[in-house]
């Protein structure tokens, strides 16, 4: 459905998106995850042909956009990062305009049905620009669904929604997916798409650092454990000694405290203690923490850890 090869966007030498190879399969919900500034919007805008990539190719429905521009655009439903509205149109006029643009039959009925699904049918005659942020977000989604597109591209569609709104939007997305539609959805909050997405790609600093099913990702992340150890003092050579242990992934020092990331599969706490005492270190306090998926995501993105290295298969 979506395929990119070496997709790259550079701004004056700064790469907002680097060598991105995305594969989104037909019928799946693909979560495109990354912190703010990771390059999600830049990627999406390139997918839509609005921004020219510095390098790389894009295929939508297996075809290059510039060759089948109108055919492809008609099969796409897009909710952008911001809901830009005309300030002289009611919600109905706004939707009606786009319904005409996308050649939608029975537009009044279609608009009514979709607006009802998001609980906005009572506000059809209101100026769209007077809508609250959450309402505008839903209006954008309705606009994107008007022509019953085969592929939905959504850039942070639940940003600014209240919990109730998030559930409504999630339900709508899942219903579309059940009807066989492919959905590409970006977010900077894992929990927002954790329950909906079949697969996620994690992008950080423009680089795709992981791409897997939620289940696999969760299993893999569960295997990580964080150990917080407080010392009287940190002896020189201690950190190096710890790194010699095979199950240690990362050690970070802060004052008299070490934060140690290790594989949870083999509980290496005994061996860590042994190494520490061999170095003459005195432990004041030691705590373990199993990472939640959310924390793992934050760790991956903040510390820029790549998960590719331990990936079994491509």
């Amino acid at each position, binding site marked *: 459905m979506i395929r990119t090869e070496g997709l790259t966007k550079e701004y004056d030498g700064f790469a907002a998106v680097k060598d991105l190879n995305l594969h989104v399969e037909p019928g799946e919900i693909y979560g495109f995850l990354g912190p703010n500034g990771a390059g999600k919007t830049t990627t999406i805008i390139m997918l839509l042909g609005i921004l020219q990539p510095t390098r790389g190719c894009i295929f939508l429905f297996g075809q290059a956009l510039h060759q089948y521009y*109108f055919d492809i655009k*008609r099969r796409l439903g897009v909710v952008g990062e911001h809901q830009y509205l005309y300030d*002289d149109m009611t919600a109905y006029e706004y939707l009606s305009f786009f319904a005409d*643009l996308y*050649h939608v039959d029975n537009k009044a009925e279609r608009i009514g049905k979709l607006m009802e699904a998001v609980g906005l049918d009572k506000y059809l005659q209101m100026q769209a620009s007077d809508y609250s942020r959450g309402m505008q977000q839903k209006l954008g989604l309705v606009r994107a669904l008007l022509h019953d597109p085969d592929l939905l591209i959504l850039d942070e569609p639940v940003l600014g929604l209240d919990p109730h709104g998030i559930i409504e939007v999630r339900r709508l997305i899942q219903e579309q997916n059940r009807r066989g539609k492919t959905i590409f959805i970006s977010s900077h909050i894992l929990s927002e798409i954790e329950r909906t997405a079949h697969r996620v790609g994690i992008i950080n600093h423009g680089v795709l650092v992981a791409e897997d099913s939620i289940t696999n990702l969760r299993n893999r992340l569960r295997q990580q454990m964080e150990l917080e150890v407080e010392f009287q003092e940190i002896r020189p050579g201690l950190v190096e000694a710890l790194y010699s242990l095979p199950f240690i992934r990362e050690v970070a020092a802060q004052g008299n405290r070490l934060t140690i990331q290790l594989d949870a599969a083999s509980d290496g706490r005994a061996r860590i203690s042994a190494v520490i005492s061999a170095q003459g270190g005195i432990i004041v306090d030691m705590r373990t923490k199993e990472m939640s998926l959310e924390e793992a995501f934050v760790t991956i993105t903040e510390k820029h850890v790549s998960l590719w290295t331990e990936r079994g298969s491509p």
Partner: protein
Amino acid sequence: MSWGSDWGPRWRAVLLIQRRDLEAMIFGWGLYLALALAFLASLLILRNDLAFVNESGLSVFANPFALPFFITALISSFFLAISSVTTIAREKGQGTLEVLFYGPVDHVSYIVGKYLAQVITYLVMMALYVPSFILHTLLTNLVFPAGLAWAILLSVFTVSAVVALGIFLSTVARNVRASLFLFGVTTLAFLGIQVGHTILVTLPAQGRYYDPMLFLKNTFAILNQTALWLSPYSYLDRGMEAVVRGSAGVYLALFLLSAVYTVGFLGLSAISLRHRGVRRK
């Protein structure tokens, strides 16, 4: 973006963009302000002419509608130039331009749609204005001159050229203010050259051997010649003259020139829009 094929869906986008702009124009107030100004100016000129006819006792007056129509067309094209120069910049500033491009709209369809809206607005203005001329001929015993019909036809093309230039400036500018500024500078440059040339021509030469004035005069003559070809405002001026003089050749040439000018600047606009992007900055 493919240029050749896809005219079916592209045409749909053109018509929708055109329709939306035209509706905004008809429900806005700018159009009526421009029309009112044009009416007022024409009325004053015609009354003046009639008074002259009565006083001088002349029974024939060559082209009573030439000047009123010229003023009307000038006011209309000025209004359309301003509205076209702000339209794209505004949509870009609002961000709504980006949303259009999520869907089946490309650079060419967008530009052509914008252009059509402006030109159709001009036709609407003429549809409101011309009957008033006819009414006037009936009330004053003046004859509706055939030349006026020719002038109106040509004006559609010269106004097109003005609109195309406005749209192009709009795609280059970053926001509404910048585009208005660009438009102002361009217009002033064209007018400045014309006025400068007119003044200099009337000044007598002074020095016998070396005259700096001569150099200035020549420079302005060249500039004026260039502006004559580049400024779409001058096309209507010359076109009216051609109609009055009955020189079909010049008239046809201006027709063609306006059309080429329009197509050229619309093409440049599409390229510029593509190059500068459709996203809000």
